[in-house]
C-alpha cells in the first residue's frame, strides 16, 4: 500500500471518530429529565394565600385544614364544557396512580361561578371524578379574594342561563407545609402530576 493511500485511509478513519462519538451520545441520551418538578416552580416559594370558603362536604374549606397534605388547588365551574372536566379527570387519574400515597393528596376545586355552583351541586359534580375531591364556594367577594391571591382571572362570557366562564386553568401545587411550590399548566397528563406529587412527598 502506498503512503498516499495510507494517509487517505487514516483521514477517513479520523473522520469516523466524531460521527461515532455523536452516535454513541445520541443513543445514550434519555427521553427527558426526571429530576426536579415538571410543573413551573416558584423560587423562593411563598406561603400559599389562605382562604375560608364553604366546602362541598359541609365543612369550611381552608388550606390550613389540609396542612400535612399536598394540596392540588384549581379554579373552575361545574358547567364547564371541556377544561374543568379534563383537569378533574386528570387529577383523579393521578391520585389513582399513587395508590396508598393518594391519602396524602387533597384536591380542592374552587368555583368561579357561585351563581350556579352551590355546595350540593359541587358535591354531586365532583363525586363523578373522585369522592375525595372537595369543592369550595362562597359569596362573589370572598371568591374574588381567593382568586386574587393566586393571580387567577375569571370573566363571564355570554348572557342568559347558558353563560360560560373564561378562567385561568392552571393547577397550583401546595406542599405539606402550606407553601405554594409550583403551578402546572392545563394540558399536562396524570403522569406529570404523579411525578411531582412524589417529589413533594419525598421532600
Amino acid at each position, binding site marked *: 500500500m502506498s503512503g*498516499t493511500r495510507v494517509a487517505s485511509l487514516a483521514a477517513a478513519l479520523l473522520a469516523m471518530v466524531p460521527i461515532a462519538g455523536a452516535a454513541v451520545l445520541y443513543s445514550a441520551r434519555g427521553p427527558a429529565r426526571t429530576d426536579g418538578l415538571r410543573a413551573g416552580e416558584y423560587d423562593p416559594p411563598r406561603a400559599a394565600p389562605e382562604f375560608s370558603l364553604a366546602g362541598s362536604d359541609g365543612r369550611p374549606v381552608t388550606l390550613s385544614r389540609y396542612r400535612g397534605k399536598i394540596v392540588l388547588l384549581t379554579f373552575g365551574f361545574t358547567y364547564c364544557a371541556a377544561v374543568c372536566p379534563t383537569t378533574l379527570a386528570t387529577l383523579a387519574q393521578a391520585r389513582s396512580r399513587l395508590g396508598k400515597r393518594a391519602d396524602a393528596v387533597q384536591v380542592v376545586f374552587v368555583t368561579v361561578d357561585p351563581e350556579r355552583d352551590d355546595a350540593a351541586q359541587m358535591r354531586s359534580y365532583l363525586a363523578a371524578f373522585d369522592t375525595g375531591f372537595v369543592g369550595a364556594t362562597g359569596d362573589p367577594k370572598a371568591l374574588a379574594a381567593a382568586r386574587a391571591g393566586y393571580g387567577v382571572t375569571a370573566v363571564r362570557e355570554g348572557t342568559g342561563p347558558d353563560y360560560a366562564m373564561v378562567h385561568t386553568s392552571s393547577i397550583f401545587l401546595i406542599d405539606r407545609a402550606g407553601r405554594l411550590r409550583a403551578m402546572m399548566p392545563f394540558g399536562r397528563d396524570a403522569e406529570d402530576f404523579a411525578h411531582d406529587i412524589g417529589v413533594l412527598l419525598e421532600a
Partner: protein
Amino acid sequence: MQRVVAAMLAALVLSGLGWAAFAPLETGSGEVLFAIPAGTSARRLAGEELAILPRTIRLGVQDVLVLRNADNAPHIFGPTLIMPGQTFRLPFTRAATYSFLCTAHADGQLSVIVEPAPAAGWERLRWRWRILANRG
C-alpha cells in the same frame, strides 16, 4: 500530496456534516429568561405602556421558560402571579401550543409555541443550518 490534502478536506467536511446531523441537541439547559425590571410598576402607574413579554414565545422541547420579577410589586406575568424577587421556572417537555390568560397583554392572551426537536439525520442537519444562517 494533493490527494492527501483533498482526502483530509473531504474527511473534515464529512465529519462536520456527520456531527451536525447526529450530535444530540442540548437538552434541559435552554433557559429563556424574561424579567420585569425594577421600577416597572411605578412607570405603569405613571401611564407608560410597557411591553415586557412578547405576545408569542417560541421554545424548543426541553427548554425552560424563566420569568423573574425584579420589581417591588407583584405582577401577573404570563401564566402566573410572581411576587417581588421571585423567579418562576416552567419546563416544557412536549411540543405543542400552550395558551395562557395573561393580563400583561391587551388581548389577555399569551401563546407559548414549543417546537419539536428535529430528528437525527437530515432534519437535524437542516435545523442546525437554519440556526447558523439566522445567526449570520
